[in-house]
């Protein structure tokens, strides 16, 4: 039986879905995490502990194991493991992976911007600063409105719009504090950098795709019907198929494909964020991984294949019958954290589930958990899933289900 290495951070939302996909594909799994599993001692060849921040060392460790027990594919399940995944694939000579250089470029927003500009992909003006820079001086060197963002974080964490120099200075200080937290500071040298970009107005979409030998297959295009104009950029509702005109959807796919090519991405899943306005399509970001959180549960392909199953089949070089998504409209709401505090109670789940079209309400925050909203936070309260005949119905169902949920959050003492 083929052996598949899954790189699964202990903090990912994706574990269950990738393990289920591996079961369906019928492959033997090896799981690597950054911290030891309680059974790592019993199954040292199947439950690995790898330092995801040291790809060279991790790749050597896996190569050593693979000499004794071959590994036929490696799949990083989210952003944190794309670089180490590429390093492992290179060490094992696996063909269905991106290079370390390409994966590394997607993990640093400044280097990504540089590569996109060099390739002529439409990109807003940008500049890079470090936490050591004087924010007041930096505020005089940029245009407004602008968006400040850490170069190494994902999922809108630390992303803040500034319309004036005063707002710029405040945002800079806030991001500097986020970058000073130990878990962020440990990421890499880019953890001290702040990217400032011109704000791109317009409608935002997310493209989910699969690269095979450099050719992009579009798996889904999601509309984000809630405006993302700042000051923070909390993503909430994703609905597919897109309601944008067909020609615009084609231009979005073309831009995403050019961006992937510019970054050197050639294999595996991509998740791209783009904006559309009267000037055209703008690439905000592209990552060499699939959609985050539990959002992939909105997607079904062919006769019920999951996104994770497609990713695993591609990595293993197995046939993928179709990349065509089902005909139904589908959507997800990432439930935002309204304010800082401790989650005491969640009510209304049955009422939310009773909304026509709602398939599931998954509360992933646990009672007693400290909740931190954006821009500092890195978690969701949970996810609402809906399916229907038309995107409008799905969006309405998600909003109604969310309205019926009640979160009791106890404020933290000052």
């Amino acid at each position, binding site marked *: 039986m083929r052996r598949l290495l899954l790189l699964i951070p202990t903090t990912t939302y994706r574990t269950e879905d990738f*393990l289920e996909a591996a079961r369906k594909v019928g492959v033997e799994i090896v799981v690597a995490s950054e911290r030891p599993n*309680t059974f790592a001692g019993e199954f040292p060849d199947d439950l690995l502990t790898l330092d995801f921040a040291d790809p060279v060392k991790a790749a050597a460790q896996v190569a050593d194991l693979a000499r004794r027990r071959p590994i036929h594919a490696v799949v990083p399940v989210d952003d944190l493991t794309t670089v180490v995944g590429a390093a492992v694939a290179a060490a094992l000579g696996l063909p269905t992976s991106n290079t370390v250089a390409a994966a590394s470029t997607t993990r640093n927003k400044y280097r990504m911007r540089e590569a996109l500009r060099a390739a002529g992909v439409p990109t807003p003006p940008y500049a890079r600063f470090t936490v050591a820079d004087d924010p007041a001086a930096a505020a005089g060197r940029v245009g407004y409105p602008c968006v400040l963002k850490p170069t190494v974080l994902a999922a809108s964490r630390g992303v803040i719009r500034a319309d004036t120099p005063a707002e710029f200075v405040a945002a800079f200080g806030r991001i500097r504090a986020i970058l000073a937290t130990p878990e962020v500071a440990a990421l890499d040298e880019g953890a001290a950098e702040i990217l400032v970009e011109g704000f791109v107005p317009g409608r935002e979409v997310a493209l989910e795709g699969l690269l095979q030998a450099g050719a992009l297959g579009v798996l889904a295009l999601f509309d984000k019907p809630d405006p993302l104009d700042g000051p923070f950029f909390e993503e909430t509702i994703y609905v597919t198929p897109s309601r944008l005109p067909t020609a615009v959807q084609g231009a979005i796919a073309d831009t995403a494909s050019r961006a992937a090519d510019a970054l050197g991405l050639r294999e595996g899943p991509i998740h791209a964020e783009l904006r559309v306005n009267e000037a055209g399509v703008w690439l905000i970001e592209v990552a060499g991984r699939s959609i985050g959180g539990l959002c992939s549960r909105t997607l079904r392909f062919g006769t019920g294949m999951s996104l994770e199953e497609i990713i695993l089949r591609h990595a293993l070089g197995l046939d993928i019958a179709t990349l065509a998504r089902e005909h139904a409209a589908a959507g997800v709401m990432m439930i935002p954290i309204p304010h800082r505090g401790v989650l005491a109670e969640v009510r209304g789940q049955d009422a939310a589930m009773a909304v026509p079209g709602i398939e599931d309400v998954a509360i992933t925050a646990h009672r*007693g958990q400290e909740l931190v909203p954006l821009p500092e936070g890195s978690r969701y309260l949970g996810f609402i899933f809906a399916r229907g005949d038309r995107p409008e119905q799905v969006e309405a169902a998600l909003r109604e289900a969310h309205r019926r949920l009640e979160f009791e959050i106890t404020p933290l003492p000052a």
Partner: protein
Amino acid sequence: MGGVLAAGGLSRYNAAKEASMADVKEPGVKDKVQDLLDTAINPAVAAHGGYIELIDVKDSTVYLRMSGGCQGCGAADVTLKAGIERMIFEEIPEITEVLDVTDHAAGENPYYTPSKG
């Protein structure tokens, strides 16, 4: 016993199993699963504040509930599929399926909490 297994929880389980070989009555499958939980699995997950409870064995399916640090933990699925399930399959071939009946959303002290990354 799988040859890849290192000394630890399963060796304790094997010692207990050898000691019981003198027993006249062969234990039922449910007893075997409970023994494995008591001697190998729960001592391991206890390191993360977790506990695995055997709910039932029906036909060839084991029903388990995770609590403590395992309930709602981001690594619970890995622990179940790549650790607990594998141990049970290797030690008790009569079992072909292990199902988790835990309400993970109700966990109040998970060892690892998922985040956006």
